[in-house]
């Protein structure tokens, strides 16, 4: 007869179950980010000028933050390896479904191409892509809506609020 297993008092459900590796990737990524930041800060801060008259100088807080970041990174790695406080998978596609990944790529591309291609083209493309990724069914209504909204935003912000939006050839034709 099998005896019932009593879980440890402080163990989370994640700690008592096999842990999917994808749930560990992000905590490890953040730990690596903090560790890299602490090394960079430490290297940079060593070149800062010293403080005067009892004042600790501009390197004091960076050193402190670098030290705490390194400690937190190590603690996060230990916590993640032990499987404590890991998030539960909740949905198809896991942590990073393809459509979220595409959305991220579109956003990063838009941020860099905004200046080169002009407001209208970039914002129409972004709105269209986001609508599609969020589940819009008819591509042509999605495209028309994206174009009309982008044009309205261009007119309101460019003309009414005098925000100097980057203008491509199409923006000029459309009155931006």
């Amino acid at each position, binding site marked *: 007869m099998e005896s019932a297993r009593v879980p440890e008092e402080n163990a989370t459900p994640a700690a008592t179950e096999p842990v999917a590796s994808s749930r560990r990737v*992000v*905590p490890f990524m*953040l730990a690596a*980010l*903090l560790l890299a930041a602490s090394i*960079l*800060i430490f290297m*940079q801060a060593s070149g800062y*000028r010293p*403080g005067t*008259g*009892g*004042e*600790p100088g*501009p390197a*004091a*807080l*960076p050193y402190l*933050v670098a030290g705490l*970041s390194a400690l*937190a990174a190590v*603690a*996060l790695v230990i*916590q993640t390896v032990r499987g404590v*406080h890991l*998030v539960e998978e909740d*949905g198809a*596609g896991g*942590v990073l479904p393809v*459509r*979220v990944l595409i*959305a*991220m790529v579109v*956003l*990063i591309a*838009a*941020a*860099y191409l*905004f200046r080169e291609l002009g407001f209208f083209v970039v*914002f129409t493309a*972004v*709105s*269209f892509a*986001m*609508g*599609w*990724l*969020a*589940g*819009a069914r008819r591509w042509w209504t*999605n495209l028309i809506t*994206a174009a009309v*909204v*982008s044009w309205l*935003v261009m007119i309101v*912000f460019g003309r009414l*609020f005098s*925000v*100097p*939006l980057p203008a491509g050839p199409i923006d000029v034709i459309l009155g931006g």
Partner: protein
Amino acid sequence: MDIFGSLLGGFGSLFVSPMMIAAVVAAVIAGMVVGALPGLTATMAMALFLPFTFLMEPDIGLSVLMGLFAGGIAGGSIPAILLNVPGTPASAATALDGYAMTKRGRAREALSMAMFASAIGGVVSALLLSVLAPLIARLALNFQAPEFFVLAIYGLTIIAAVAGKSLLKGYVSGLIGLVVGLVGLDPISGQLRLTFGNPEFNGGISLIPVLIGVFGITQALVLIRQSSTTGAPPAMSGPRWLTRTDLKNSGTTIARGSLIGTAIGVIPGTGTDIGAFLSYSEAKRRPKGEIPFGKGNPQGVAASESANNAVVGGAMIPMMTLGIPGEAGTAVLLGGLLIHGLTPGPQLFTGEQSSLVYTIFATFILANILILVVGLVAARVFSYVVRIPTHVIVPVIITLCLIGAYAINNRFTDVIVAVVFGVLGYFMVTHDFPVSPVILGMILGPMAEVNFRRAMTITGGDWTVFFTRPASILFWVLIVVSLIYVWRSGKKQQKGMDTLLDEGSTDSVRVPRSID
């Protein structure tokens, strides 16, 4: 007496400006619409509109933020009552009895109770804010660099500790904020730090694009991840007006909820959800009426909604008087004050700008009254709002985020910063790392550093100054006591909230992943 005179002056400034009244009305409606959309929070609404307030006069811009804040919290009750899906975490407790009332054919009464309780809770907290904030500010005028340093440490310690399910994850988020806050020109020596030769970062990484990224773009990515639910609008049944018995029974509950909410709001690191659940628990201990709690008792709605709106006023007290934002919404509001050249702290209540402060208080009171009016008049419209599909919402959020990040300084770098923090925020939120401490680290880190170094310069490097002044000692004691309390009560509180959600309703409340 001068406080009430100043508040009357604030109302005077408000009512002579039709533009400002129109702005508050529009902001309350917009806040309620955003709050009514499941998963979207009042904080996100404020972060989205924050850059556009820069294009307005300070009094109008700040009034818009107040309207969005109050309207957003109240709007969260609508999907909680109609769909059992709280629009904001603050309304999770509302769903327990609100949705049960809908199932009993009393949806309109539940909505009326929610709006009534929200309005009363908000007005009570706004009045307490108007009275207490100037008194605390007067006291804080005596504070100097050592006290402000310890205060900033208090904020950083407590906020990171209570922000998430894991203490370590809260601190990791706070540290990311501290690292970001280091970038740029050192305010005392003029040394450039962590700019890596990029002149765009000489002035530091702006707060607003980061706010837009972690609250706006992150939420849009989370919405893309979640499946969209659309369908027929929920049935709006039952009489519109509350019965005299319900009003009579809920009077004490609303008064108690308003006071609990305000008190909880004053404590940095708490939030609207904690206030609502505490008030609900208290009401449950003293039940009135024939219907049990969790089965459609209007008092359950009254307790939760009066408290969550009251938290807003309470949370503004430490933010406006000491510059310590206690949670995400007030952090965004602090950003709003900063972009209009106003530095939160005791000096805000002195000089010419003090009249603007009382105008903000008056606006907050008006916004809460408008919640009742708009909520009662447009309840049917909101039943359609809760069903707006994700593929309509997401492009609008992203467009506002990108244009907002750019418009604040007309800089492409800010757009890139918003996107980078949006992507980072997505990974954090989906792994239970709270994003609020990132913002609070950015705000409180520089505050701690500047005051620490000032104090050290004044005293010639004497460290004991942080432990010998009476106010500093008091704040250190508060830090230790609060940390012990947070550590001991954290698990108990989470367990209590989970138990309420499990036992309170026959249907489990579906709380969508939202960012606060």
